[in-house]
């Protein structure tokens, strides 16, 4: 519940994302930007395995993040309001 990285954004009403989330966002954005801007041609296919490899630590980070928090919001009792 009160896991280690919890207090990095414990201050009430804080909208700032923790560094880790920002990092993940930036990595995603860089890869996405790479795809949107570069010539999307055959040479990219050569990079495919590396990019997938790159995705692994990224996903790990995220999955781990999810676990560390222990409990996810119970969706039944608290309907989200996206």
């Amino acid at each position, binding site marked *: 519940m009160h896991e280690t990285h919890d207090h990095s*954004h414990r201050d009430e*009403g804080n*909208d700032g*994302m923790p560094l880790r*989330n920002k990092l*993940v*966002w930036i990595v*995603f*954005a860089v*890869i*996405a*930007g790479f*795809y*949107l*801007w570069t*010539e*999307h*041609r*055959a040479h*990219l*296919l050569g990079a*495919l395995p590396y*990019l*997938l490899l790159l*995705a692994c630590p990224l*996903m790990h980070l*995220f999955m781990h993040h*999810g676990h560390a*928090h222990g*409990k*996810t*919001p119970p*969706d039944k*009792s*608290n*309907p*989200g*309001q*996206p």
Partner: protein
Amino acid sequence: MSTQSPAYGLWGLVLLNSVLFILFAFSFYKPHSRRDWRSFGMYSAFVVALFTEMYGFPLTLYLLSGWLAQKFPGVDFLAHDAGHLLEVMFGWRTNPHFGPFHVLSSIFIFGGFWLLAKAWHVLYHAQRESRLAMTGPYAVIRHPQYAAFVLIMFGFLLQWPTLVTLAMFPVLLVAYARLARHEEAEVLARFGDAYRDYQRRTPAFFPRFGGKGASRQAP
């Protein structure tokens, strides 16, 4: 640029791009409820349809090829660049990846992802503490995550319009609006007056600039 390799039939790129953009959204949306999954699923369908045309099979270009060839003689519509249709039609006719529509589209797409991430962060903490999310993006509009999805998809439309995604877009708008309405009913039932008060203060989708006045976001 388009000589050595074919521009379409690149199913690896279709897969990779779809997975990337779906994962990107997933990481910062984290669907829980069935409704979350529905809105996420609709976004995913849009993304897959888009990249299938962008790198796999350019259905739109085939269907419109006669008209396009007449209107824009000399454009090689089998090359990737021509698929950035708005650039071809109204843009600067340079490398489309740096044309006005592509730049605008990138702003919408990354802005959308940023909003999605921001809103998720606020919502996540609000849900954990069983309170309403009313700060950050939620202070500006009531449904920032749906708005984010719409911004992202609108960005993609600017960049690479296709018949299929153009047809999907209004359907998705209506679907998101309905999901939002159902959701509000649930949240109202749970939080009552607190939410009613928040509803009064905060517009649903279009932020108020200054006093009142609509925003430029798609209807």
